[in-house]
C-alpha cells in the first residue's frame, strides 16, 4: 500500500563542503545516504531518516544539517502532525504503534518546580573540594535498632547490604535490547566507579560474569537467562514487576534483534519476538510476590538483597508498602518518564505517574507505617542532571537509577528507534556491523566521566546546604521548596512553597 506519510527529518547538504568521502553513507544503518557515481554526488532519501545525527557528527567537513522536516499539515492545535502521522501509519498497517525511549509528552516536570536550599550566615556551607564530603550509600534492609553486648561488642548482624560510592546506579537494560558492547561498557564503568549496573531481563552473557559483584541481576516475567549460577553471580537480585515506560505490560524484544547469541542466553528461537508476559505467572497477588522474593532468597542462600522494581502507578504508595511487607530489601520505583527499548506508544505516553510524586508518596507512606528502614528506595525514570538526583534524595530516595543519561553519555541522541534493531550509535542494536562501533574502552570512560561529574556537582550542592554526608539530605525535604506548584502538589511532595 502506498504510504501517505511524510518524512520526519530534512537533510541539508552543503555541496561546497562535501568531499565525497562517503562517511555518511557508511554510518547510516537506515541507508539514507548514497553516492551517485555518474554525477559524482552524495544524494539522500530522508524518508527513513531517524534524526540520530550520526552522519552530521561524523561528517569531517560538517557539510550536513539534519533537522525536523518543515513539511506541515495545516496547523491545528488538536490534530497535530504526530497524531496525523501515527493515524496514517495505523490505517496502512492495522497495527499497534511501537516506539522507544521515554514519554516525550509535555507532562509537568516537578524537578523544574523544586529549588534547593543553601546555608547563609546562620550555619556554614562547606567547601567539598577541600573538606570531606561523603556520598557512600548502603542499600538493603536495616533493623529498627542495634544491640550491643555487655562487653561493648556489636550483637546485631545486618541483612545483606550493597555498597555504592555514589547513589547512582545504571538502570536495567537487557542484553538484546542493548548491544554486548554497551552492556560491557556499563559493567566496566560501574565496576570502576564502585556502583552497580543492572542486567535487565535478558540474562548476563558468560564473558561479563566477572563483573557480577557490581551487577543487579533481574528476574522478570520471561525468566530469560535465569538460573542458579546467574542469580548467585549478581550482588542483588531484582524482581522486575513493571517499568515506567510501560506499566502493566510485559517486555518486548522484537524478533529482528533476536540473533543467535540472544537466542542462546534467552533460550528462545532465533528471530522470534522475545515476549515477557505482562505478569509473572507465579505472581497474581501480594502473597505470591512474597513467595518469589523468598524463592530467590532461598536460591541465593539469603546472601543477597532482593529488590522489587515497579512502575509508578496510582496506588504506588500502598503497593510499595505491600512489597516491603512481602520481604523486599529494596524497592525500585520507575516513573512516567522512564525509558524502554520498545513499548506501545499508547502505553508509554499515557500510563503511570511522575516519579517525583510517586517517590514522595512512597517515602511518606513507609515512614508513616514505621517500615521505611526495612527497605531502601531507588527512584528511576526521568533524571537529566545531578540536581534532579539531589532533589530525589531530598524527597526520600536512597539512590537513583539512570538509564537514558547513561545511553546519552555513550552517544544516544534519543531518536526513539530502539525497537528497530538499527542504532547507528551501536548501542541499541544486536547487528554486529553497527554494535562494533561502540568501543567499550571509550564508552566506559564516557560513563565514568559522567558519574564523576555528577558526583562532584552533588557534593557541591550538599556542601552548599551545609551537610557533608548524603544521609543528612536523604528524606530531608526542608531542603526543598516548591515554585509554581498548587497546594495539592506541595502536599503530595511534602514540601513548602518557596518563601514559606
Amino acid at each position, binding site marked *: 500500500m502506498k504510504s501517505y506519510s511524510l518524512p520526519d527529518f530534512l537533510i541539508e547538504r552543503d555541496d561546497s563542503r562535501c568531499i565525497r568521502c562517503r562517511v555518511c553513507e557508511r554510518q547510516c544503518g537506515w541507508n539514507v545516504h548514497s553516492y551517485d557515481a555518474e554525477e559524482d554526488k552524495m544524494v539522500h532519501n530522508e524518508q527513513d531518516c531517524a534524526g540520530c545525527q550520526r552522519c552530521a557528527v561524523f561528517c569531517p567537513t560538517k557539510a550536513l544539517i539534519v533537522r525536523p522536516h518543515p513539511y506541515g499539515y495545516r496547523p491545528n492545535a488538536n490534530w497535530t502532525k504526530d497524531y496525523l502521522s501515527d493515524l496514517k501509519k495505523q490505517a496502512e498497517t492495522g497495527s499497534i504503534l511501537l516506539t522507544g525511549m521515554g514519554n516525550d509528552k509535555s507532562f509537568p516536570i516537578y524537578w523544574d518546580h523544586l529549588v534547593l536550599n543553601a546555608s547563609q550566615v546562620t550555619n556554614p556551607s562547606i567547601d567539598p573540594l577541600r573538606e570531606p564530603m561523603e556520598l557512600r550509600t548502603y542499600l538493603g534492609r536495616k533493623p529498627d535498632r542495634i544491640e550491643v553486648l555487655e562487653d561493648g561488642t556489636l550483637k546485631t548482624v545486618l541483612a545483606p547490604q550493597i555498597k555504592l560510592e555514589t547513589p547512582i546506579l545504571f538502570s536495567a537494560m537487557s542484553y538484546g535490547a542493548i548491544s554486548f558492547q554497551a552492556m560491557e561498557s556499563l559493567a566496566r564503568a560501574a565496576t570502576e566507579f564502585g556502583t552497580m549496573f543492572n542486567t535487565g531481563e535478558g540474562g548476563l552473557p558468560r564473558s561479563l560474569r566477572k563483573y557480577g559483584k557490581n551487577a543487579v541481576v533481574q528476574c522478570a516475567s520471561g525468566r530469560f537467562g535465569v538460573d542458579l549460577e546467574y542469580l548467585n553471580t549478581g550482588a542483588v537480585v531484582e524482581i522486575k514487576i513493571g517499568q515506567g515506560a510501560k506499566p502493566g505490560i510485559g517486555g518486548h524484544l522484537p524478533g529482528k534483534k533476536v540473533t543467535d547469541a540472544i537466542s542462546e542466553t534467552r533460550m528462545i528461537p532465533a528471530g522470534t519476538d522475545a515476549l515477557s508476559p505482562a505478569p509473572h505467572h507465579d505472581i*497474581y*497477588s*501480594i*502473597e*505470591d510476590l*512474597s*513467595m518469589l522474593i*523468598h524463592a530467590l532468597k532461598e536460591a541465593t542462600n539469603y546472601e543477597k538483597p532482593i529488590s522489587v522494581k515497579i512502575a509508578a502507578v*496510582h*496506588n504506588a*504508595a*500502598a*503497593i510499595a*508498602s*505491600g*512489597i516491603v*511487607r*512481602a520481604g523486599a530489601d529494596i524497592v525500585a520505583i520507575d516513573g512516567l518518564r522512564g525509558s524502554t527499548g520498545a513499548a506501545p506508544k499508547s502505553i508509554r505516553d499515557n500510563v503511570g505517574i511522575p516519579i517525583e510524586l510517586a517517590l514522595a508518596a512512597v517515602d511518606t*507512606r513507609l515512614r*508513616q*507505617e*514505621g517500615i521505611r528502614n526495612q527497605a531502601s528506595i531507588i527512584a528511576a525514570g526521568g533524571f537529566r542532571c545531578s540536581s534532579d538526583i539531589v532533589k530525589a534524595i531530598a524527597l526520600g530516595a536512597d539512590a537513583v537509577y539512570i538509564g537514558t543519561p547513561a545511553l546519552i553519555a555513550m552517544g544516544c541522541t534519543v531518536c526513539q528507534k530502539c525497537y528497530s534493531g538499527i542504532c547507528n550509535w551501536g548501542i541499541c542494536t544486536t547487528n554486529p556491523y553497527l554494535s562494533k562501533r561502540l568501543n567499550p574502552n571509550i564508552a566506559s570512560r564516557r560513563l565514568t566521566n559522567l558519574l564523576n561529574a555528577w558526583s562532584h556537582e552533588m557534593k557541591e550542592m550538599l556542601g552548599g546546604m551545609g551537610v557533608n554526608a548524603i544521609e543528612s539530605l536523604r528524606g530531608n525535604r526542608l531542603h526543598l521548596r516548591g515554585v509554581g506548584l498548587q497546594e495539592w502538589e506541595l502536599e503530595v511532595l511534602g514540601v513548602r512553597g518557596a518563601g514559606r
Partner: protein
Amino acid sequence: MQSKKNERLANPYNDDKVIAACSLFGCLDITGRNFSGEGVVQAIANMHNRGNGLGGGFAVYGLYPEHKDHYAFHIMYQSRDVKAETDVFLEEHFDIIEDEEMPTKHHHPITNPPLLWRYFLLPRTEPEFHDNHVVDKVLEINKESKGAYVFSSGKNMGVFKGVGYPEDIARFFKLDDYKGYLWTAHGRFPTNTPGWWGGAHPFNLLDWTVVHNGEISSYGINRRYLEAHGYPCTLQTDTEVMAYAVDLLMRKHRLPVETACKIFAPPFWSQIDQMGPEEQNMYRTIRQVYPSLLMNGPFTVIIARHGEMLGLTDRIRLRPLTAATRGNLLYLSSEEAAIRLISPDLDRVWTPNGGEPIIGRVGAQARAQPAEGPFTEVRRK
C-alpha cells in the same frame, strides 16, 4: 504511634481501595453436626506464610443454638462513649435479649484490641421485615458511627476477627469454647495498612460471610453499582463488595447461587458463542444485565451462609483453590497441604476450574465436579 493505629476500625489512609491477599480455609459437615474448630485453626496456621499477621478471622455457623432465633451482633467499639451512643441506637430499633462483653483472653501478639461486645437482638418490626431491618441498621451504624463497627449480624452464627495471625486471633477469642458445623477461616496480607480490625475477614452481613483472596480489578465499578443499589461501601475492600453483591443477588433478586456465580465469573464470549441457543441466551442476558457485577481480576472466595458453603475462583483461575472430601466433610483451601495436615487421607481432592463453583450443602453431597473430573487418579492398568 503504630499501636494507636491498630485500634482503628477503619482504613487509616484515604486510599481508593485497600489491597490485601490471603489464605483461605473452609470446612463443612454436610450432616450439620457441630465440631470443634481446632483443626480449622491448625490448617489456616499451616498457611502462615501466605499472610503477614495483619488480619485473621473465622466464621462459625451453629454456635449459638440457645439463641437461634435472635440476631447475634458482634460489635467493635473504639471507646465506651461510642458504645453508650450505639446502645441507645440499638435499644431504639431492637429488643436486646441479652448482651455481654465478648470473652477474650489476653494473648501477646494481639495488641490494643477494641472493646468487643456481643448482643442477641430481635428487630422491632414485623417478622417479614426482620432481615431488611437488620441490614439497614447494620449499614447505618457502620456508615454513620465513628468508632463502632458491626462485624457479625446473623442468627446462630458469628464472626471473630482482628489484627493478628489467624491462630493468634483464635486464641484471643477463645475459639476452643465454640463448636459449629461450618467454619471458614482467613489469614490476611494487607499491602497498605498496618492492619485494622474492621478490615479483617470474614466480612459479614446477616448470615452471609465472605473470605476472599486476591484483588478485584473491577472494584471501582462493582462498588459504584452496589452503592447505587443501597449498599454504602465503607471499608474500601473487595470482600465487602462481594458480600453486598451476594446479598443483592441472592436475597433481594432471589437468584440461585449458581446464577450468582455466573454473574461474578461469566464465560467468555468466545465460549458463549459455542453454546446451544438456550444457554447462549441465558449467559448473554446475564452479561448484558449485570455487567457491573462481573468480578474481574484475581479472586478466590469462600462464601457461606447457614447450610451452605461455596468456593469460587475468577474465570481464569488466577488465585488457587483446592477442594477435598472426606466422609461427611467438604474442605476448601488455598493449599492442599493445609487440608492434608488435619485429614491426611482424603476421599477426593481436586482443583476446580476457574469460574466453576464448588457448592456444599447440608443434607446433600458436595456438588461440584462431574464424576470423571480432571483429578481422578490415573488408573493402574
